[in-house]
């Protein structure tokens, strides 16, 4: 079974791969890391972001939970990565009694 850090690295790698495929921005050529803001890579207010979220879910068997995203701070790729949870865990959270 993959450790949490490994899983995180895979999700980050998948996001970067998808971003690279969709973007012609020079930022990506210069490299991105978890602190890169989504706005820097042109992903805020973009329907592409939802596409990327769905694609990561499918490839990495995770589910995106926007309730784990802090909308107050600058949205970074790292905050996006943190909001992905194993699919089974996300389903349990969704059906748990409030």
């Amino acid at each position: 079974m993959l450790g949490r850090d490994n899983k995180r690295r895979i999700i980050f790698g998948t996001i970067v791969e998808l971003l690279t495929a969709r973007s012609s921005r020079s930022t990506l050529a210069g490299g991105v890391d978890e602190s890169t803001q989504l706005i820097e890579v042109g992903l805020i207010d973009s329907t592409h972001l939802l596409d990327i979220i769905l694609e990561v879910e499918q490839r990495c068997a995770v589910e995106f939970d926007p309730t784990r995203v802090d909308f107050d701070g600058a949205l970074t790729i790292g905050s996006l990565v943190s909001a992905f949870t194993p699919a089974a865990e996300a389903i349990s959270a969704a059906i748990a009694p409030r």
Partner: protein
Amino acid sequence: MSVSIIPLSEADRASVRQLLLRSWGRDWTDEVMERYFAWRYGGRSNGETLVACDKGRSVGILDSFIRPYWIAGRWEPVRETCDWFCLPEYQALGVGLHLMRRMMSKPEPILLLGGSNDTLDLVPRLKWARLPNAERYLLPVSTRAAVSRLGRRLGRYGDALARIIPDVRLLRRIRRPRPPSANAEVRTRTLGVPVEEAARIVAHDFAPALDTSSLDWLASAPDVLGEFVLLGFFSEGSLVGVSVSRLQTLSFGGEAQIVHMHAARLELIDWIAGETVQHLLDRGAGAIACETSCPVSGRALRALGFLRRRPVPVHWWHANKPPPSGVLNLTSLRADDALAFA
């Protein structure tokens, strides 16, 4: 601060109303909106609404109705989703998607007729199954109503065009199909009259079950939705069919929508459709619209002169239950955004 998902009962009502007004694109006064909201969200007992909030502000919503359906001869609850809306900046981050996933984790299957382009793009990716389309039909009765309907894509220009052309009535009476018996009759149902026997009649393999509370809910709709007309069809003293229609008075005249037709036997649908259409003509409808997935209803409407328009896609979700098959009777009798504002 992150987004939280809460039931409507825990959300700030004023903030939810503001979000919905934006979603519906209405410029209603506070009074009209409050009356509509009280009916739409407060006047029914079979709903469940989830609201996404950011610091108390409503940023996304997904409503649902849970209605009993006849599925292959058995009653089962089915969830109909509606009012799925999210502010764009939150939509991109999957808040709307998360609301729908919360609904998808509930035990009932979900039925979705139509939907925005975004919705139709998303649901197949969430592995929803496609059901046969619902067909849309239109009977133009007066020139003004026809022009307004067909010119709706032109927005206010279509309305303006409808106002300046002469209003010629194209149709006053239709050739009504023969009733099933000599003592067959049609009765108008008024608010509060129980329709328990209607719940037991069904001719389709998949159809909503009618119940008194949902019909009363429609009958008590605020004026902005028009007037709901319920006709009961009797033969040999028994109720054998029901039709639910909506009449609205618009700037160019009356417009009607056949919301639902329900029959004990498929061969009764011609009669039910004919009587319903004539009733709406007598009430001054300048155009009559109908949406149905039932091929028998479709044939009956075409025989009465209805034109077929672009169909509506239908989707079904359940993790384990296979989608329904056979003759489906899916109409506008479902979660209320099927009853669009004119």
